[in-house]
């Protein structure tokens, strides 16, 4: 493997190789003006080269950083490649970040250049630039609304490429020379981890990290150059960078950029990807969508669907648990597949999927089983930004419910004395940019501390229990795993987010966010009128609804020997949604437990008193960065003791 890699050790070299080898094959598709527009590998190479020339004409030198911000667009992937071709380092940013977050990262990464998708991002970057004078040049793709802007150092991608063409006249081999100077140990990208604690940290990944891990995973999972993937996750997330960029280039498959964030589901159906990657949040949304639409169907259809879905899920659960399958169910399953599961899978745009991953955080077992029952090969992937994503993946045909699978080839896993998962692999990052302290805390002799508590079972499968620091015990010593409970709660279409509390307390409680779409639909069908999210969340009927869901979780908890003592005693429904703009969850939608505990301290205290309602006042941040105050009265519900 290393012999092949030795001459093709950076992405610019690999793309040039692809342009020669796969020239006319499609590399990127983008839905624009209602039509899927295709770009070949030759286009990929050619356009990134032109962008690189343009950047060079503006004085881009080796080591410069380019901030890349916007939805998934071919041009932005090309900007990433162009930066790398010149020996620079791309820094992809979350497109929904507010100005403050952008400012922190642009400043910390010392970005001189920025490539933005449209006016919205340019407006943010122009304000960022006032505080980060190091940011000189801002390039934008979509000129709409920007024609009248006359700020210095602001230019369109078309203008940049034009400048590049002129520059090329005097320097015909400039980009090729720069590409030749690059090597596998150079930093390829800095991915800022959203971090559930503290400020973001910039993980530096080398070309060798990304290319080797991409290749290892592609070989083990059998990726092919005729695979199709949907590039719809934030470009700043390492998952998208690995799949839509690194793996697509290494394996030579095509990625497809949706028309807009609002059309992803429709585009998914049109493309029918064979390789699909989604965090649990997306799977949850898909499931909620299905269940809500099902509730609107006529009752014979609904009954039939529920029956066969139930059957398929029961079978899948037994299969994953290695239990025997009842004969009647086995006989009925093909009918169910024909009538319900197959059509539903097709309707979701998932008929052609060969490999699908859920990653980012733990997925609720019920959600996982649901999609597998439809016949979709969803597998759990355990990974981290610092590992170039891949640590462990469930192998085809060896998927279990309670583990995240076996380590990838060339990845070693070890469990520390404290029960923390440690690993070592070719993907282990170079360190955090300008943060040696954090690097020291994370890496020890080449082993990365994952921060997760887990163990390897007798068959070599890795089982993750919870975040090491989240795992706790109740006041009486009962084991309590918050994430585990939360995932069970979130299986309900009505529960969008849940935060469970318990360590050091006498019993377990939960803060719950309802799903406005699903609960709103439920309320409308029952003729329950509501005016706003806050109003709906505090309806006694909604509390009754959620109470049933909590009782269901408690009942399923009885099956687990270790965790059965940690049943939920009380809950309340939050008056507002947890929002990344309020720093309550990260941009990748992980709950920032510490912050939530602090912010909602009065609510949490009330859960451990005899009160049945509590008044809250909360600051909210609007999308444009302004803040306001919301005041509400929140009810507390106690579950009847059995």
């Amino acid at each position, binding site marked *: 493997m290393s012999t092949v890699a030795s001459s093709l050790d950076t992405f610019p070299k690999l793309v040039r190789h692809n342009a020669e080898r796969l020239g006319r094959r499609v590399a990127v598709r983008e839905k624009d*003006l209602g039509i899927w527009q295709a770009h070949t590998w030759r286009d990929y190479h050619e356009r990134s080269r032109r962008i690189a020339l343009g950047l060079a004409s503006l004085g881009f030198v080796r080591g410069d950083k380019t901030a890349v911000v916007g939805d998934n667009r071919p041009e932005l992937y090309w900007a990433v490649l162009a930066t790398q071709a010149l020996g620079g380092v791309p820094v992809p940013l979350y497109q929904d970040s507010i100005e403050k977050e952008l400012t922190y990262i642009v400043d910390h990464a010392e970005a001189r250049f920025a490539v933005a998708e449209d006016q919205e991002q340019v407006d943010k970057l122009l304000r960022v630039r006032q505080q980060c004078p190091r940011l000189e040049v801002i390039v934008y793709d979509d000129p709409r609304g920007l024609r009248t802007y006359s700020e210095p150092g602001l230019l369109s991608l078309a203008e940049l490429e034009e400048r590049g063409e002129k520059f090329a006249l005097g320097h015909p081999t400039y980009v090729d020379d720069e590409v030749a100077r690059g090597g596998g140990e150079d930093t390829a990208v800095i991915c800022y981890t959203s971090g559930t604690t503290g400020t973001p940290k910039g993980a530096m990944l080398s070309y060798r990290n990304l290319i080797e891990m991409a290749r290892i995973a592609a070989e083990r999972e059998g990726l092919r150059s005729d695979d199709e993937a949907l590039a719809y996750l934030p470009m700043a997330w390492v998952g998208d960078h690995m799949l839509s960029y690194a793996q697509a280039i290494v394996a030579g498959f095509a990625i497809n950029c949706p028309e807009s964030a609002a059309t992803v589901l429709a585009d998914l159906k049109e493309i029918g990807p064979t390789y699909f990657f989604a965090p649990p949040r997306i799977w949850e949304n898909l499931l909620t969508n299905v269940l809500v639409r099902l509730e609107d169907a006529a009752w014979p259809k609904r009954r039939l669907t529920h029956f066969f879905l139930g059957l398929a899920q029961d079978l899948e659960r037994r299969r994953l648990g290695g239990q025997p399958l009842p004969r009647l169910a086995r006989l009925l399953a093909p009918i169910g597949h024909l009538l319900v599961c197959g059509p539903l899978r097709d309707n979701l745009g998932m008929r052609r999927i060969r490999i699908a991953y859920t990653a980012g955080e733990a997925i609720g077992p019920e959600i996982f089983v649901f999609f597998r029952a439809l016949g979709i090969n969803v597998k759990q992937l355990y990974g981290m930004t610092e590992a170039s994503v891949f640590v462990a993946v469930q192998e085809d045909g060896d998927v279990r419910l309670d583990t995240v699978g076996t380590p990838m080839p060339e990845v070693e896993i070890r469990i520390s004395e404290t029960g923390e998962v440690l690993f070592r692999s070719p993907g282990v990052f170079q360190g955090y940019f300008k943060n040696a302290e954090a690097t020291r805390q994370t890496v020890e002799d080449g082993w990365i501390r994952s921060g997760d508590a887990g163990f390897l079972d007798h068959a070599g499968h890795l089982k993750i229990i919870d975040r090491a620091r989240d795992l706790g015990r109740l006041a009486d010593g009962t084991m309590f795993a918050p994430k585990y409970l939360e995932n069970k709660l979130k299986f309900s279409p009505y529960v969008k987010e849940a935060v469970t509390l318990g360590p050091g307390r006498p019993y377990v409680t939960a803060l719950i966010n309802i799903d406005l779409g699903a609960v709103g639909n439920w309320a409308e069908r029952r003729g329950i009128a509501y005016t706003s999210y806050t109003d709906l969340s505090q309806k006694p009927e909604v509390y009754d609804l959620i109470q049933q869901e909590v009782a269901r979780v408690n009942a399923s908890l009885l099956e687990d020997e270790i965790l059965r003592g940690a049943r939920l005693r009380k809950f309340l429904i939050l008056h507002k949604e947890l929002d990344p703009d309020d720093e309550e969850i990260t941009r990748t939608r992980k709950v920032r437990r510490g912050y939530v505990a602090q912010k909602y301290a009065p609510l949490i205290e009330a859960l451990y008193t005899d009160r049945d309602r509590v008044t809250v006042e909360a600051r909210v941040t609007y999308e444009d960065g302004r803040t306001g105050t919301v005041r509400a009265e929140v009810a507390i519900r106690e579950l009847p003791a059995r």
Partner: protein
Amino acid sequence: MTAPARSGPLLDVDGISVRFGALLALNRVTLSVGRGEIAAIIGPNGAGKTTLLNCISGFYHPFEGAIRFAGQDRTRLRPPEVAALGIARTFQNVALFRGMSVLDNIMTGRALAMRGSFLLQALWWGPARRQELAHRAFVERIIDFLEIQAIRKTPAGRLPYGLQKRVELARALAAEPQLLLLDEPMAGMNVEEKEDMCRFILDVNGEFGTTIALIEHDMGVVMDICDHVVVLDYGRKIADGAAEQVRKDQAVIDAYLGVAEPLQRRPA
């Protein structure tokens, strides 16, 4: 179509009056809208704003005065003729084909630009086919521009109000107008929808150079996006000028906020 004069105002309304029975809805209103301008027509309820718009779009005809568009007198034209001249409009109460998809609704905006025989169009053959493809491409640009890709195939009647307004704007734009008349484009919208609509109006003006005349009640919006404001009250023009200047005008303040003896001034 006659070649439009390159200089001078695009729209010239010269002392027009309209009477409904005993009510003088417009009383010698004169105003002009320059090329590439965003002009607002404001005023209290019943001031005659929509009547003025209806006159410009040929729906009503004034009994005195003249309306000139691009230097040509066109006081007496009917709505289709006005539309053919390059004036498109949206309505105060959304007027979409509720059962048709958003795409089809916007395509109707291209109707005037479609040529060719009925037979060829029915067979979707030859020039008719090429034409339809070209029109569809144009409509797709508008869909992209107004960010309504996700509802392309949705029946218009199923959309929330704010989006219906946006689809109406799209249909008006599909006619490639020189002058766009918007009757309360932001009525009944929430703050976010209003901000979106403001951005679209500014972008339409900036990107296509379309001249826009709009009726609006939200003074914040008017002051923010309009170059030029005309104030009507009881069918008469009481102020005309730059937004800043109009805001300070005493007659305008009186009309909007009332004066000391409002009941005597306005007999029912």
